[in-house]
């Protein structure tokens, strides 16, 4: 029965070892996907290389279908899978700050680690910068604590929020992803026809 950790299949210490192994696997997959390269990542925001969208949506759809069917079979108790509580306004603001940093620096936190690990200097400097950001956040936290904890909504899940079945959400996300894939392919072709520019 999953999640294995919450059902006591292993303790805290073993979970840390497993986390490191999964982390290395995640980093490896990101690197192989080309996500250690800031040009590819930033290209997403200028719509001339849609690789980020394709990889991310593929990951989302794969994980979602896995979770849904594992739960249906009875291997997984989805209610025990951790989801972050929603704090609407602070999370929107935080998302925007992260997005701006992503466009400027060409990395998000995880991909900057991947990039630094492959020896890229821009990745390393981004990595240092993100720790500096963490430090600044920690220092000013008392000032923004009220805002940080504002608009709490608890555990919000789409099926409950919209009052539709779980399967309906799964179906809609799959359709959305396939639509996005088709649109991305089409967009890249059109752009190539107009500019003659091959995607990086």
């Amino acid at each position, binding site marked *: 029965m999953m999640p294995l*950790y*919450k*059902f*006591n299949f292993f*303790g*805290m210490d073993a979970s840390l070892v497993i986390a490191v192994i999964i982390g290395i696997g995640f980093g490896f997959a990101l690197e192989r996907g080309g996500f250690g390269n800031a040009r590819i990542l930033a290209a997403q925001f200028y719509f001339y290389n849609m690789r980020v969208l394709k990889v991310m949506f593929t990951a989302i*759809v794969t994980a979602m*279908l896995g979770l*849904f*069917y594992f*739960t*249906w079979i*009875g291997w997984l*108790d*989805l*209610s*025990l899978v*951790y*989801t*972050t*509580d929603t704090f609407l306004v602070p999370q929107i603001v935080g998302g925007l700050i992260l997005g701006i940093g992503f466009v400027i620096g060409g990395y998000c936190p995880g991909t900057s680690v991947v990039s630094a690990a492959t020896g890229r200097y821009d990745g390393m400097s981004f990595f240092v910068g993100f720790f500096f950001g963490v430090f600044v956040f920690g220092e000013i936290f008392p000032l923004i604590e009220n805002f940080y*904890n504002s608009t*709490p909504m608890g555990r919000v899940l789409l*099926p409950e929020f919209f009052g539709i*079945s*779980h*399967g*309906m959400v*799964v*179906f809609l*996300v*799959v*359709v959305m*992803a*396939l639509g996005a*894939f088709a649109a991305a392919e089409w967009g890249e072709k059109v752009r190539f026809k107009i500019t003659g520019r091959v995607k990086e």
Partner: protein
Amino acid sequence: MKNLLNGLSTPKKLAAIALLLGVLALIIGNSNNRNKISVNANEIALSTINDQDKISVNTLADWLIKGNADFTLVDLRTEKEFNEYNIPTSVNIKMEELLSSNLRRNQKYLFYGSDDIASAQAWFILKSDGYKGVYILKGGMNSWKNQILYPERAAIITSDDSLKFEKIKEVSLHFGGTPGIQISGQTTNTAPTQINVPQVPKLSTPLGTTTKKKKEGC
């Protein structure tokens, strides 16, 4: 049909599979009912008989003094009662919020109410839902008050008993209680301060707080 499949690229095949699974999910609807739980009645009955999940107030006092902290102490009484007095390091969780309050299955929880009833109910709810480390404070807050905060000894006792009471007295004073000696139905306090009506001591240790945001996830 075979030609059609061969004509498709791998991404398109995968997309077709995803779409198929998506449509199937639509038909399945909801994948689970998280409020439905199965109970192993035999196992629960056995652990009730063995009394293995009950912790006495003296053991708890001992743990607290030694700083043994591999368990979370949970107060099931009302918020008002909790704020008036609670056992140091405890957190207040309402019975109806037990299952939604993110208790971890791999941690130990020691429950207490005014007596044994609320904690026994909490014990049953959590045991049925597969929690393993659930314990009851025997006698609840009433026992804590009688045995730790305001322990009494008979007026005439042996020297052996007297030694024992000295120990109990120390524990009591540690938690801000007032131990007393029973003389024909009346109690004389042996603590320096005289309090006639049993009054709960002021909280000296900070209350345990439930964290607003969990340290889990990314």
